[in-house]
């Protein structure tokens, strides 16, 4: 049962091969078996899940046939869930029980999915290894000595270990795609504004975007349709009809024009990853795609621009955690300033503090133009690079990450070394473009991801390409040893 994709679960539930309750019970047993070693879940809501599953089964028995009815998923612990603790991986929110649901959670609830729990993540989504979680790091199911990536590390590890068929994630600089690549699963960051950010705890508001993580592109298509759409409550959510992604994925790739950025196939990319990508390129050629080299000449400035824009927005967003209205409060504050300063010092972890300091510095008088405005200008140049590329090609293909999953502790001494992990994923966030990562091979037993970047609102095409690729390859069907 646990090896079933979302599409297979939908089919099996509809056929009555098993009930939602049976499936949820089985998955909850697996979670309790593997969570101690993998730590993919921060919170498991077994009782609520089983009673919702029972209710879903009863509805189905009465003739309800919503496609996702009774389908188990898990939410990244950044999405507010009414009555279920939402920590965002932080001590600051260790005891925060939201009084409301994020729009994404509401949409999944309305579609009938069952939430098995909340997945582990880097604190406030800041990190590329999940090592910044207050609730401990997460093991990569392919090699438990290695990180699952981040910040949606728990979401990726949970799917890879087949503890749940799909999860939600969020992506500010690669936080869906990089862990998807490290864990051998499929994940898509939609166009900025496609998915509501309401109730999704903010890190960098002009970059954050939620999306699905699952084993297949087909599953991502089903889930993205369920979670997308206009929301009054998010002022940057875009009012535009949601595509039937599931209908888009079956199209032929004949005539598809794919750009290969010279800058992505550069010295930063390890040779075995380049070889895996070459194989994927050949597979897509057989499916009818043609490839041309393109230039995205300002790409090397994406990481520097991002590490000004994201910390600046983070320092502003996280100022709301003041120890007054919610979140951690220090013991016996002597005055209001002491209350603010100590509550925040105790509540936030190392990387979050570092980013708040950098962001505050970059936004402070005298430095604002040199850092923040400069970064926004560079952001524009990066966006223009993409716009020029999309005059020539339909999509852009490259690696998701420069290396495969690294060992715990390997990059933790130097923040800049850690930041360079996001070199290939950050540009799409700066431009607001949709981007997907799908498994395309293994290097020394560790998964490799390929990344597709599309033009605005071209999610359907990205899912289409990945789905067609997954019809002729089986990288996405591989399951780590030890969790079969």
């Amino acid at each position, binding site marked *: 049962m646990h090896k079933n994709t979302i599409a297979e679960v939908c089919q099996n539930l509809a056929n009555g091969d098993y009930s939602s309750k049976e499936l949820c019970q089985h998955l909850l047993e697996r979670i309790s078996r593997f969570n101690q070693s993998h730590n993919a879940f921060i919170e498991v809501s077994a009782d609520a899940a089983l009673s919702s599953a029972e209710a879903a089964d009863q509805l189905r028995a009465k003739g309800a046939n919503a496609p996702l009815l009774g389908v188990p998923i898990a939410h990244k612990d950044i999405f507010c869930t009414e009555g279920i603790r939402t920590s965002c991986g932080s001590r600051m929110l260790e005891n*925060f*029980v*939201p*009084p409301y649901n994020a729009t994404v959670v509401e949409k999944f609830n309305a579609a009938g999915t069952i939430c098995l729990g909340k997945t582990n993540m880097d604190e406030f989504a800041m990190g590329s290894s999940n090592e910044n979680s207050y609730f401990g790091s997460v093991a990569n199911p392919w090699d438990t000595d290695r990180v699952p990536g981040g910040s949606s590390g728990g979401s990726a590890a949970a799917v890879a270990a087949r503890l749940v068929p799909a999860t939600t994630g969020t992506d500010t600089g690669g936080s869906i795609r990089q862990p998807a690549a490290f864990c051998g699963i499929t994940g898509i960051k939609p*166009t*900025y504004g496609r998915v509501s950010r309401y109730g999704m705890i903010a890190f960098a508001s*002009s*970059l954050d975007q939620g999306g699905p993580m699952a084993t297949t592109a087909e599953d991502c298509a089903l889930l993205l349709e369920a979670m997308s759409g206009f929301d009054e409550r998010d002022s*940057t959510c875009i009012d535009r009809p949601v595509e039937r992604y599931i209908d888009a994925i079956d199209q032929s790739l004949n005539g598809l024009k794919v750009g290969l950025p010279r800058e992505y196939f550069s010295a930063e990319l390890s040779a075995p990853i380049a070889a895996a990508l070459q194989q994927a390129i050949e597979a897509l050629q057989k499916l009818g795609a043609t490839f041309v080299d393109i230039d995205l000449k300002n790409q*090397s*400035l994406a*990481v*520097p*621009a991002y*590490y*000004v824009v994201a*910390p600046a927005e983070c*320092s502003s967003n996280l*100022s709301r955690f003041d120890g*007054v*209205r919610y979140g951690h*409060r220090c013991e016996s504050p*002597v*005055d*209001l*300033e*002491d*209350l603010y*300063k*100590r509550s*925040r*010092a105790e509540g*936030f972890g190392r990387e979050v*503090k*570092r980013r*708040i*300091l*950098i962001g505050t*510095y*970059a936004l*402070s008088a005298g430095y604002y133009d040199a*850092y923040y*405005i*400069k*970064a*926004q*200008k*560079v*952001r*524009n*140049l990066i*966006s223009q690079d993409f716009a020029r590329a999309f005059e020539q090609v339909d999509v852009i293909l490259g690696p998701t990450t420069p290396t495969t999953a690294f060992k715990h502790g390997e990059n933790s001494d*130097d*923040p*800049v070394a850690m*930041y360079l992990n996001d070199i290939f994923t950050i540009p799409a*966030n700066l431009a*607001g*473009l949709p981007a997907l990562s799908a498994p395309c091979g293994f290097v020394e037993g560790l998964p490799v991801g390929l990344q597709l970047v599309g033009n*605005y609102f071209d999610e359907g095409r990205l899912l289409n390409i990945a789905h067609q690729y997954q019809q002729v390859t089986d990288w996405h069907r591989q399951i780590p040893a030890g969790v079969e």
Partner: protein
Amino acid sequence: MAVDEKTVAQVAHLARLSIDENRVTEYADEMSKVLALAETMNDINTDNVEPMAHPTHAVQRLREDKVTETSQREAFQQCAPSVEEGYYLVPQVIE
């Protein structure tokens, strides 16, 4: 620009974040490294480039000025560290 300990202390105050004194040098080093990374942007001329604040250049959506949300003070205060009779409690501010 290299950040010194004094700057870390100033910025930490602006961010209302108390910093462990033993850690100030570490933060100064790390901030300096990240700012050095940011300064690589100076390699490119951006004189005639518009700053991009938002990926799709969206403008603020307006709506009719009418009440859409109900008061849910009690629900919202349930997750507050300290409240009394509907008010949030903080250390005394006015003598």
